[in-house]
């Protein structure tokens, strides 16, 4: 009885660790973004946070930056360093953050 409860608890703990590990691994390039895009909403910056944003919206903005269709100071030059697949992976990852 006790042993069952302990192992059930262990399974829950292991599962939550696995989820935590998986959820915290950003795709290539994503870890750099939070140098400028605040992860903490308490930070006062004109640069918008990315966590929880709609993935399709991030992809559309990055494509517009890359194509020069959206005026930019720095994001045009950064967007040109990423492929469509990379942008989609980064966008999907940020959409899941909160």
């Amino acid at each position, binding site marked *: 009885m006790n042993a069952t409860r302990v192992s059930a608890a262990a399974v829950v703990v292991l599962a939550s*660790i696995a989820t*935590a*590990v998986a959820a*915290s*691994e*950003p795709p*290539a*390039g994503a*870890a*750099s*973004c*939070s*140098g*400028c*895009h*605040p*992860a*903490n909403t*308490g*930070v*006062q*910056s*004109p*640069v918008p946070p990315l966590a929880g944003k709609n993935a399709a919206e991030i992809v559309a903005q990055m494509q517009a930056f890359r194509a020069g269709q959206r005026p930019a*100071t*720095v994001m045009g*030059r*950064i967007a*040109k*360093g*990423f492929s469509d697949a*990379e942008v989609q992976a980064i966008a999907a990852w940020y959409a899941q953050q909160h």
Partner: protein
Amino acid sequence: MTGQRTNRRMFVTSAAALATSAALLPRPAIAQSAPRVVVVGGGFAGASAARAFRRIDPRIAVTLVEANQTFTACPFSNGVIAGLRDLTAQQFDYDKVAADGIALAITTANAIEPATRMVSLGNGQRLSYDRLVLAPGIDIRWDALPGYTEAAAEQMPHAWKAGAQTLLLRRQLEAMEDGGVVVIAAPANPFRCPPGPYERASLIAHYLKTKKPRSKLIVLDAKDAFSKQRLFQNAWAELYPGLIEWVSLSQGGKVTAVEVASKTLITDFAKHKADVANVIPPQKAARIAEIAGVADRTGWCPIDPVTFESKLQPNIHVLGDATIAGGMPKSAFAANAQAKVCAAAVAELLRGETPAEPKLINTCYSLVAPDYGINVAGVYRPLNGVLTEVEGSGGVSAVDAPRATRALEASFANGWFKTITNEVFG
């Protein structure tokens, strides 16, 4: 005699065999469930890495070794020199870092033994590690510029490590008479913060124009080109006409010696007597990198571009200004980006996995005036073992951008400082 030598050799051999067999023994289970990472250096690279480890895998036991209770940030410290902000705006403590469950050791790292994976600390403690992250920053090369000693730096500050030196340079500028001559000596590549000397020249010029308009500023450079050069020089012509004179290497700008008593900077062609002299001398990876055996003959640390593991010592990863990071500059942004990639890679290595190829971004803002910002950015990936800028990406701010854009970039620069210091220390 012969027998004695044989006995001694046999003893050495069997000791080595013992060590080898000990290394081959399975590691205790505890080491596998709670891997130990030691991070040396609590700047933008080290503190970022320590926090990233805890975020990525809370099972990793992280110790952060840092000599100072308070971190004083270099980015934006040119604003302190120019009287635009207080040094306290540059300073951060490690309370929030410790609150993440990171063990803090406020002391120096004095020795590293790669073979036994041990770090000896200034407080007598010895830490063993599965993986070591060295983020030690830079040291001044006191042997590189004749006359420029640690004592000389008290008269002719470098102010290239933020803190007392920053305030010293500020006080000297404040004490200088109107009409004085400020001389900045800029080093050859590579060095910490490539656009830094030119941002400093800009903001000192801003101070002089505002407070001491008859003064002059000379930059003596050991290079013929510098970061964001056209943007800086256009802005100098626009904002500070006739105030800043840049003397390139080919014009005889390289400072070859200094005379402290007369505050004179000597080149092959001239002697420049300064009222305020800011000597930014040649640099190298901080001394612990040399002690650990991760610095090469250049004084900097070659690394693997995927894991940031040293190319000279196994299980030691090197980050930030101390590294030879291919195209990536020695900047706080790069240090922070590298730290997050390295922590993820080390966590994977500790789990026995193979880290995927990363991509990293750098963005460096410079303020030419409080409301005039410019930047350089780049995206990097490993290519043939070197972090290489992705073709077609990166570059500097538009040369023909209007003043409104420069003002917007200045606000982005301020936002960047708040964001990155919050991520690293807040």
